[in-house]
């Protein structure tokens, strides 16, 4: 361990401890103060005393004592019965032993609370990064390209709602999971995809964010090993993350899947994703994340774009459209169908969703590429122009302009 790794270790361990402190104190703000205090102490002490054998236990003990101080002080100050009752409850809860399984359940509770449907979707992602990944408000603001103050407000409003509306701190019962798990899966996946779609110039940050997403997906799967969709999300996240180094070229330009340098893919991660997925599939409870993971793994294991198992991918997209219909899924399916049944069939699939996706540049660029393949140059250029009219980011804009020039010369 180098000195540079210490803050990262403390942050990660602090994230684990926070979930437990929230349960013990029943108060997110107080738990954060207590953990923050323990983190500061760790950064002062560990460089001299060495890293303790169990860093999380060390941090928990320090944070617990700090929380008790805070509650005692509040009870003394207000002399209210409710404060004394709270102190009793917390002391009792703290007397219970902390096994590994209790600590893991605490993290799962926190994840479900952060992803509660009563919170706005963008607040769920931010709160999850703040509490479970230990990112600072400033870091999260940078990742989502909003002002620090805006992100600070978003997070504090969400915390305030959890407290005031009493959003419970618990893992939903089995019969509630079908309603509640999708929001958790979507939040974790949003962390992963935000890592790929962040605008250019933030490459370091977006790799960090995608890595946090992969870590969360793994955590969720470890905590809910019997939910095949959690395994599916983990496999999907990992297989997508494995292509990170090929997604952007040296000049910072976006490289489409067809042109990516496959030697830059992390094959070991794709293989791990496939192992996780294959085990999940044996449970025979398919879902959208397992299907998307299967598609990502098939891409990941293909020698080249041309050698990809397109018939299999096209039928997986048809399955995905059945499980989770959306215009975007239709576009992806059309791309696969073009390789199997031909471009004309694919264009017909696109026509159904043109009205829904008229403001999405990737719809128009996909359609444009298909038209170009058929030699329908004028229509292709028109579709590229429509894509440029959807205000794509600078890198996509340059790509589209280059394609207009290339296609016009055909």
């Amino acid at each position: 361990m180098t000195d540079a790794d210490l803050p990262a270790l403390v942050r990660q361990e602090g994230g684990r401890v926070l979930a437990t402190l929230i349960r013990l104190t029943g108060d997110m703000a107080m738990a954060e103060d207590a953990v923050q205090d323990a983190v500061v102490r760790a950064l002062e002490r560990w460089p001299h005393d060495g890293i303790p054998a169990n860093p999380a236990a060390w941090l928990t003990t320090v944070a617990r004592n700090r929380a008790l101080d805070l509650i005692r002080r509040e009870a003394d100050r207000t002399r209210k019965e409710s404060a004394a009752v709270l102190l009793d409850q917390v002391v009792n809860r703290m007397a219970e032993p902390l096994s590994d399984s209790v600590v893991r359940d605490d993290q799962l509770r926190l994840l479900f609370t952060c992803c509660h449907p009563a919170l706005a979707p963008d607040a769920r992602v931010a709160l999850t990064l703040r509490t479970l990944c230990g990112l600072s408000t400033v870091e999260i603001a940078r990742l989502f390209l909003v002002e620090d103050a805006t992100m600070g407000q978003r997070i504090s409003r969400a915390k305030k709602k959890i407290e005031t509306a009493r959003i419970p701190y618990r893992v939903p019962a089995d019969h509630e999971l079908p309603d509640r798990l999708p929001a958790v899966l979507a939040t974790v996946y949003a962390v992963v995809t935000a890592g790929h779609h962040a605008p250019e110039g933030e490459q370091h940050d977006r790799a960090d964010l995608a890595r946090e997403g992969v870590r969360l997906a793994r955590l969720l799967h470890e905590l809910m090993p019997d939910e095949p969709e959690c395994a599916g999300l983990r496999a999907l996240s990992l297989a997508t993350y494995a292509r990170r180094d090929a997604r952007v070229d040296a000049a910072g330009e976006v490289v489409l899947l067809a042109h990516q340098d496959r030697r830059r893919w992390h094959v070991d991660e794709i293989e791990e994703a496939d192992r996780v997925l294959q085990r999940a599939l044996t449970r025979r409870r398919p879902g959208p994340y397992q299907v998307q993971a299967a598609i990502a793994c098939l891409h990941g294991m293909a020698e080249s774009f041309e050698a990809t198992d397109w018939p299999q991918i096209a039928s997986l997209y048809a399955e995905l459209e059945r499980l989770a219909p959306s215009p975007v899924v239709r576009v992806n399916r059309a791309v696969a169908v073009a390789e199997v049944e031909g471009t004309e069939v694919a264009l017909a699939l696109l026509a159904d969703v043109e009205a829904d996706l008229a403001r999405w540049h990737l719809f128009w660029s996909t359609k444009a590429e298909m038209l170009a393949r058929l030699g329908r140059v004028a229509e292709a250029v028109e579709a590229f122009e429509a894509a440029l009219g959807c205000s794509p980011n600078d890198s996509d804009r340059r790509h589209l302009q280059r394609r207009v020039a290339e296609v016009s010369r055909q």
Partner: protein
Amino acid sequence: MPRYAALIYEPATTEGQGTEEEWAAIMAGHETFSAAAGAAGVIVGGEALQPTSTATTIRRSGGPFGDHVVTDGPFAETKEVLGGFYLLECADLDEAVRWASQIPGDLVEVRPVIDFSQM
């Protein structure tokens, strides 16, 4: 035990426009809900409100203690209007939402009630 107000909204366009059968169906829905939530001890109070055409608004200028002007109508012309409410006593938001989702109505908003004994 925390209390939650379940506020029942309906489209302004259909407010008070229903047929007798529709009214009867909605009332039967409320009776079913009140019987279940009442037996569980969840309902602390609640009322149905007359249409917004009967509303009177008192608006103050210059803050909450300023001069007041009484005007006809609801405070804002909105697409949805408040038709009535229940006051529910529940352990947490999940329980409140579970009960509130059984209330008939186009839209039900759940709001925690301030507990003044804790202030």
